[in-house]
């Protein structure tokens, strides 16, 4: 009997049209938990570093987290893992919504897709009955439209659908997978789905997910529910409103966008508009949101209402979440009405809400600079908003200039040449980032930007306040009920952290403290991604209901194997290192661990070197960022060490860095 998990994977070979239900080894669950953890193990075992992202050998794994389908509030995430066409590294984007629990109820922990279908198909999983069905009639249809059509065609209104739009079909490097009110957007995983000829996965499940010690598990859930209520009634003072509460930032609720519009950059992550927000704009944007927002909505088994149904005039209703509310608006230097309208097209086409607007702004900047010319944009409308709609259309169809832009700013700039590279300025590891440009280096964020292998700052930050509080009294008040810390030393770090003077950034928190803080923040994200927990109730906000002290109890009461804080920390470290190992085997090195060059105006090269040196050591990596043989063996990853030695990535005798170090000084754009 398996608890919390189903103990089965669904293996689908689209080249042969073969479907198999495969029992899994419970020992793997203890070592890698599930979700991201077991995904990483499968990718390591089965996708060699030589395998191209667009090839039958690449796997596309849809995984429920270990605790999805149980009553644990907010545990509903699907972790989709593959090799990204854009970064050529492991991508592990995630989505909330309703897919993961439904997959569990259908009797599977994962769907593992391999091969390539000769024609467009969709996968229909109805408990034990699994069919690969023709989807040629759905070619070119929007992702949301596809979901509705399939549910009607199958007469299954309760089925959950994860689908790609035109962008995925045309292998746009930042294509998303859309599902319910959620999407797995980052890293271009929708393009891999398109490359496999898979339009959608549809799932309906009516089986049980069992708990090992049910009464104990429910008590834990009740504690969490009580704490959510407490936190909803007691927002954290001294931080900006979107960081005061739980959930992902409540963008669908708030009207006051002064902070985002005046601190984030507009256009191609260029322009900061410090006096943008005024009464007129506030009134206008409030009217826009109020007139289009129909309802605040949640993912499965979660009270946080982070999303909303949006009905722009003259367009179909769609579901939106979080910061895509502003990314199109700000890239186009336009208003909220435009942003909410074009996001509807973007959702149907299935593109990432960070990359897509930035790519379009980048193209127009190149036009302004004369690197691209009017001839590259034949038929483009004159008006600003019209240009964005036109560009989006070209990109998802890969027509003309759109075919180049569809590869993202990094690859497009390389192809365009003529100095275009310096306009692709907001990337990490070839992947577009939040449009933020700041003044002085923040050492904690420096480490997170460098080493966050989800390559997205929001997917590593959290737990520790982003900035020091002004007075000691405020800080003392904050740490009073801060029981989520893994160790009391974090309270001390925060108490001593001053906005100015000796104990302020960039030299305080000290290098060692920064390592501790970043490691804790990252660990919580990795645990969430294995359990299927939404970061909005756990790793992202301050003082969340899930933390390192109650997670082991959830796991042992739910899944039925022994777990404690140490074991959980070790497991998270194990698969985190395995993610790194996959990327190292694909050529990632220290030279790639860096923030966008212009992210901070004031940089501190010596301090930055010390930060990275120390953090690598702390993580058990050598000075080139490669996990050492010793640390791999300690984590039970001796097979990785063997492979690294075989491939000449590590040497048998010691852990001195290979010749890759020489390249570290130079680095690419």
């Amino acid at each position, binding site marked *: 009997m398996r608890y919390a998990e189903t103990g089965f994977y669904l293996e689908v070979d689209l080249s042969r049209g073969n479907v198999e239900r495969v029992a899994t080894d419970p020992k793997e669950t203890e070592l890698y938990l599930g979700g991201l953890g077991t995904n990483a193990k499968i990718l390591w075992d089965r996708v060699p570093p030589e395998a191209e992202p667009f090839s039958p050998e690449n796997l596309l794994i849809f995984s429920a987290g270990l605790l999805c*389908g*149980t*009553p644990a*509030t907010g545990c509903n995430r699907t972790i989709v893992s593959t090799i990204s066409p854009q970064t050529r590294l492991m991508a592990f984007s995630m989505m909330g919504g*309703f897919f993961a629990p439904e997959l569990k*109820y259908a009797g599977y922990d994962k769907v593992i897709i391999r091969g390539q279908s000769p024609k467009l198909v969709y996968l229909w999983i109805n408990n034990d009955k699994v069919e690969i069905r023709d989807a040629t009639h759905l070619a070119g249809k929007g992702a*949301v439209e596809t979901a*509705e059509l399939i549910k009607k065609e199958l007469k299954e*209104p309760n089925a959950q659908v994860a689908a790609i739009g035109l962008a995925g079909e045309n292998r746009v490097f930042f294509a998303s997978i859309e599902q*319910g*009110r959620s999407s797995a957007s980052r890293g271009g995983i929708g393009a891999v789905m398109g490359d496999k000829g898979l339009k959608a996965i549809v799932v309906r*499940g*009516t*089986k*049980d*997910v*069992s*708990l090992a010690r*049910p*009464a104990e*598990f*429910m008590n834990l859930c009740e504690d969490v*529910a009580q704490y*959510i*209520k407490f936190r909803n009634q007691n927002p954290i003072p001294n931080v900006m409103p979107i960081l005061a509460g739980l959930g992902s930032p409540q963008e669908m609720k708030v009207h006051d966008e002064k902070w985002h519009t005046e601190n984030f950059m507009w256009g191609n992550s260029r322009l900061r508009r410090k006096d943008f927000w005024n009464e007129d704009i506030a009134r206008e944007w409030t009217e826009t949101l109020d007139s289009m927002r*129909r*309802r*605040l*909505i*949640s*993912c*499965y*088994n*979660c*009270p946080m*209402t982070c999303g909303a*149904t949006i009905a722009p005039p003259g367009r*179909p*209703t*769609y*579901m939106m979440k979080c910061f895509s509310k502003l990314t199109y608006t700000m890239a186009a230097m336009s208003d909220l009405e435009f942003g909410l309208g074009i996001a509807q097209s973007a959702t149907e086409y299935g593109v990432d809400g960070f990359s897509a607007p930035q790519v379009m702004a980048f193209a127009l900047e190149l036009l302004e600079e004369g690197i691209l010319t009017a001839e590259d944009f034949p038929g483009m409308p004159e008006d600003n908003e019209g240009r964005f709609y036109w560009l989006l259309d070209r990109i998802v169809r890969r027509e003309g200039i759109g075919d180049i832009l569809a590869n993202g700013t990094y690859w497009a700039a390389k192809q365009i040449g003529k100095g275009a590279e310096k306009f692709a300025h907001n990337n990490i590891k070839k992947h577009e980032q939040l449009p933020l440009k700041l003044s002085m280096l923040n050492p904690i964020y420096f480490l997170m930007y460098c080493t966050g292998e989800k390559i997205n700052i929001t997917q590593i930050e959290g737990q520790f306040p982003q900035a020091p509080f002004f007075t000691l009294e405020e800080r003392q008040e904050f740490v009073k009920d801060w029981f989520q810390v893994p160790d009391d030393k974090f309270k001390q770090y925060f108490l001593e952290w001053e906005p100015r003077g000796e104990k302020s950034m960039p030299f305080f928190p000290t290098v060692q403290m920064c390592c501790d803080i970043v490691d804790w923040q990252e660990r919580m994200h990795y645990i969430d991604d294995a359990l299927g927990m939404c970061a909005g109730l756990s790793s992202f906000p301050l003082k969340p209901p899930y933390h390192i002290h109650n997670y082991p109890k959830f796991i042992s009461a739910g899944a039925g194997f022994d777990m404690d804080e140490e074991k959980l920390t070790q497991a998270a470290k194990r698969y985190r290192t395995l993610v790194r190992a996959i990327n190292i085997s694909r050529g990632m090195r220290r030279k790639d661990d860096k923030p966008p060059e212009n992210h901070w105006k004031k940089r501190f090269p010596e301090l930055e070197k010390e930060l990275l040196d120390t953090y690598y050591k702390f993580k058990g990596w050598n000075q080139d960022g490669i996990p050492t043989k010793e640390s791999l063996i300690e984590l039970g990853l001796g097979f990785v060490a063997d492979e690294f030695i075989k491939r000449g990535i590590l040497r048998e005798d010691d852990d001195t860095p290979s010749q890759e170090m020489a390249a570290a000084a130079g680095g690419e754009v």
Partner: protein
Amino acid sequence: MAGDKKKKIVKTIKVNADKCNGCRACELACSSFHAEPRYSSNNPARSRIRVVRDPLRDIYVPIYAGEYTPSECLGRDKYVLDGKEYDECAFCRAACPSRDLFKEPDSKLPLKCDMCEGEEVPLCVKWCLVDALEYEQREEDAEEEEPAGEMELGLEALARKHGLRSLVDAVARMASSDKA
């Protein structure tokens, strides 16, 4: 039918569909509570509450499993409220042959809400953290029902078998032929 005045407890779950966020925590809590042993398994398909949910049309209707009915209604009804057209049977609580709702997925036996007898409030209400579900309880005067006689039991059985309407038709036919 005049009987002694008696008190009965009326239990109501007030559904505020405007507050529903569509998260289906109610379904999960219900299925979990009714598992044997309690909370040991989770499966919304076994739930006695379902959220009829269509986000793109902004339709959110939590409904509770009511009585089992062996036959479909002869007619259907459709409601339009606030400009939203609801599906046929969207508000109906019956486990009925016309649809898949409120039947055990394995045995297909009908499910019925029991208001989580013995608990302070039904579990769906407890786990609806957005307060779309509220529990109310009140006392009402009740007529004491007389136990159903043999004839009624027999007629009920006939009605179940043939449908009330055909039974009424048959009785009417008998009555009119008797007159003649």
